[in-house]
């Protein structure tokens, strides 16, 4: 869906569901997912429908993901960090993570 205009800025290694993904400095979690061509980042807690980032400005809450073990983080507001572990969130969040 998206390509990078230029591979600028230092590469940052994160994992998404355990698989390595190369992000760039300046990426948010959500933009890193889009840049890596990842199709959806969660399924809804109501019907289990797949969702992906929609607004990228903190409004829609469709980019909720688990970041470093903490669920329901807004991916579009969180800058990537080296070694960050991102997981797609399936349905309702589990208490305690």
């Amino acid at each position, binding site marked *: 869906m998206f390509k990078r205009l230029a591979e600028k800025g230092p590469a940052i290694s994160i994992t998404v569901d355990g698989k390595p993904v190369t992000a760039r400095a300046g990426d948010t979690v959500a933009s890193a997912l889009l840049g890596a061509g990842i199709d959806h980042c969660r399924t809804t807690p109501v019907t289990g429908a797949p969702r992906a980032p929609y607004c990228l400005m903190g409004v829609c809450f469709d980019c909720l993901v688990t970041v470093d073990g903490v669920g*329901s983080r807004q991916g579009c507001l969180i800058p990537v960090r080296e070694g960050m572990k991102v997981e797609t969130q399936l349905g309702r*969040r*589990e*208490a*305690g993570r």
Partner: protein
Amino acid sequence: MAIESRADDEFDVAVVGGGLVGVATAWGLSREGCRVVILDEGDRAVRASRGNFALVWVQSKGLGLAPYAGWTIRSSNAWRGFSDLLKQETGLDVSFQRPGGFHLCLSEKELEARANVLKRLHNQPGIVDYKTEILTHDQVKAMLPDIGPEVVGGSFCPLDGHVNSLRLFRTLHAALNARGVTYLPSHRVEAITREAGEFRLATPHGEIRAAKVALAAGNANMRLAPMVGLEAPMRPERGQIVVTERLRPFLNHPVVTLRQTDEGTVMIGDSKEESVDPSGLTIGVSATEAERAVRQFPLLANVNVVRTWSAIRVMTQDGFPIYDESQTHPGAFTVCCHSGVTLAANHALTIAPMIARGALDASLVAPFSARRFHVQAAG
């Protein structure tokens, strides 16, 4: 169900109040064959039915008025049948569950106070016998594995349960709609008179006439009851609730201050403040509720709070229900109480048939007449 005024229609009963007490009573009246009109306020009404905690709760009930325990248990026992009837009519499941509920204590002092309350409650003369046990930390943990180390123990009552109260609210409205009951929002009742054997209720959208009137307007009953020779002394108070995002099921029993809904959200609450400003919220009160919730269930620490709200409790001056019929205005009744969820089954299945017949059954509800306030004042 049209929402325009029906000044020309004849109704058997006008129910004043479209909250849970009003709609449960109206549904029961409709089942008895009455032609019912519900007069409600609008979208911005101060509405306890949108802010309640949704417990169907028995433990602790009745300290100070022993018959209240029996009345509560009667409703708790009727609740399964009530929810089945609603499901038959609407297809909607209000998710009533009665797995038994807890009151959790975070210090020895709290646990001791809890034990004392239960002892005083169950030592009252004439109290119906029902079981509430005091449990140790380990006993609680066997049933609620996620409690934190600070929970020293608590009390457990097998009769306690909960329901999805917003769905109950919607389900009753849907059932009334299907029954053809007339629902008139934005019809705040300004005055009630009785002329030529019928009641005339003045609203901003015209006058509604009915043979009987049931006042189920929560704290507003204080204003309305004197219009028909009744009284409803109230002392409203504010409660605040914190609610989380939807979580996978982790809690099999409701706790009096914390419950997981069937949708997965966790409600945390049970504060009491004197304020009657429904728009105010005290952050420190929400913080206290959150702090205790995390101590009770540490796995909730990182869970997101999506909303907090305050609501005004419907509360009579002594906290117990008022069910009355007017001597001066025959056909006028009050149905006024806190715990509109717990008592919904009674209102639908016991109180409504009495109103339909035109007389309250003293053997069941005499202790709940507002006349008790005068007895106390005299004594």
